[in-house]
C-alpha cells in the first residue's frame, strides 16, 4: 500500500503506549530501550525517503542536514523544522512547536510522571533523528533541549563529506 496521510494522533498515541510500557517494565533501562527502537525507526524511514530523491546526498554535511530539516522532519513529525543554525561545525535544529511533546504537560512538582514521559519522548525523538543521520553517513550525537513546546536539537557529528 502506498503511504497514506493519517491523523497525527495515531502516531502520538502509539508512542505513548510504547513509552508507558517501557517505563513500567524496564524503569532502569527505559532510555536505552527507546533509543534503540528510535534509531532503527530513523534508519528505515530514511531508506524510504532516499528512494524518492534522484540525487544521492553522498554524506555532504549541508545537504544531509537540509534533508533532515525538510524531508525527514516532515515524514517523522508532520512538518518541516522551524529553524536551522550552524556554528563551528555544530548544527542546531529548532522546532518551535514540536509535535511529539505538544500534548505532554510541561511538568511541575505534581507532574513528575509526565516530566519523565516528556524527557523519554525527547530521547526517543533524538534517537530517531540519530538513526536518520547515521544512515546518511553521519556519526555523532543528537541532544535535545526543550523550553515548553519548543525543542532545539544539537547535532554534533562527523559527516562523510
Amino acid at each position: 500500500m502506498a503511504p497514506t496521510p493519517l491523523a497525527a494522533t495515531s502516531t502520538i498515541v502509539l508512542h505513548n503506549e510504547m513509552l508507558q510500557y517501557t517505563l513500567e517494565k524496564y524503569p532502569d533501562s527505559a532510555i536505552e530501550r527507546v533509543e534503540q527502537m528510535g534509531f532503527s525507526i530513523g534508519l528505515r524511514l530514511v531508506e524510504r525517503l532516499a528512494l524518492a530523491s534522484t540525487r544521492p546526498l553522498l554524506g555532504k554535511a549541508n545537504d544531509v542536514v537540509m534533508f533532515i530539516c525538510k524531508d525527514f522532519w516532515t515524514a517523522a513529525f508532520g512538518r518541516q523544522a522551524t529553524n536551522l543554525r550552524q556554528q563551528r561545525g555544530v548544527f542546531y535544529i529548532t522546532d518551535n512547536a514540536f509535535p511529539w511533546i505538544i500534548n505532554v504537560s510541561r511538568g511541575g512538582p505534581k507532574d513528575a510522571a509526565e516530566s519523565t514521559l516528556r524527557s523519554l519522548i525527547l530521547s526517543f525523538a533524538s534517537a530517531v533523528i540519530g538513526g536518520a543521520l547515521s544512515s546518511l553517513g553521519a556519526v555523532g550525537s543528537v541532544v535535545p533541549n526543550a523550553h515548553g513546546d519548543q525543542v532545539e536539537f544539537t547535532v554534533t557529528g562527523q559527516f562523510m563529506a
Partner: protein
Amino acid sequence: MSRERNLAKIAESTFSKLDKVHSEIFTMTYGAIVTTLVEDLDNVDEVNAQLDKMGHNIGERLVDELLAKTGLNPQPDMRYVMEIVTRVGFRIYLGITPTLSNWNADSTTVTLSFRDSALSDWVELPHTLDDLSYFQLVCGVIRGALEMLGMKVKCTITADKLKGAQTTDILVELQEVMQAKFYN
C-alpha cells in the same frame, strides 16, 4: 442522505481539520514495537496479549478524540457504532475503510475485513513466528473503542493477510451492553 454517505462526509471533513502525517512513521513505529516485544517476551501468546492491551488503551483514547472532533454522540447501537468505527475512525487513524459483512439477524455479530493497512505495509512475517498475531492491536482498538461507547465485545482474528489470506478478517461479537464510559 444515507447514514453511510453522511459518515463518509463527516470522515472527510474531520480529517481535513486534523494535523496529518504520512503513514510511514506509524508503520515503522508499530514494527519496532512488535519486534521489541518479540525479543523481550518468552512466548508469542504474551506478545499478542500485550498488543491487545495496547490496542485497548489506544481505542479508548482515539474514540475520545473522535467523538470530540466529530460531535457524534451515538447510542449503543452496534450497527451504527461499527459504521462509525470503520467509516470514520479507521479511515482517519489507520487510513483504511474496512468492509463490514455477515451481520447476524439481531445485529450482534459482524465481520470486519480489510486488505491493506498502514500497520502492515512491507511486513513479511517470518516462519518462526507463525503464531504471532500482528493485527492483534486492531482487535484491542475495536474492543477499547466500543467499550467507551457502551458495548462490551469480543474480537477474534479469523483470517490474516500476513499469513496468506486474501484479507484480514476480524469477527466482532457483542457480549454486553452497558453504561457507556463516555457518558459518565
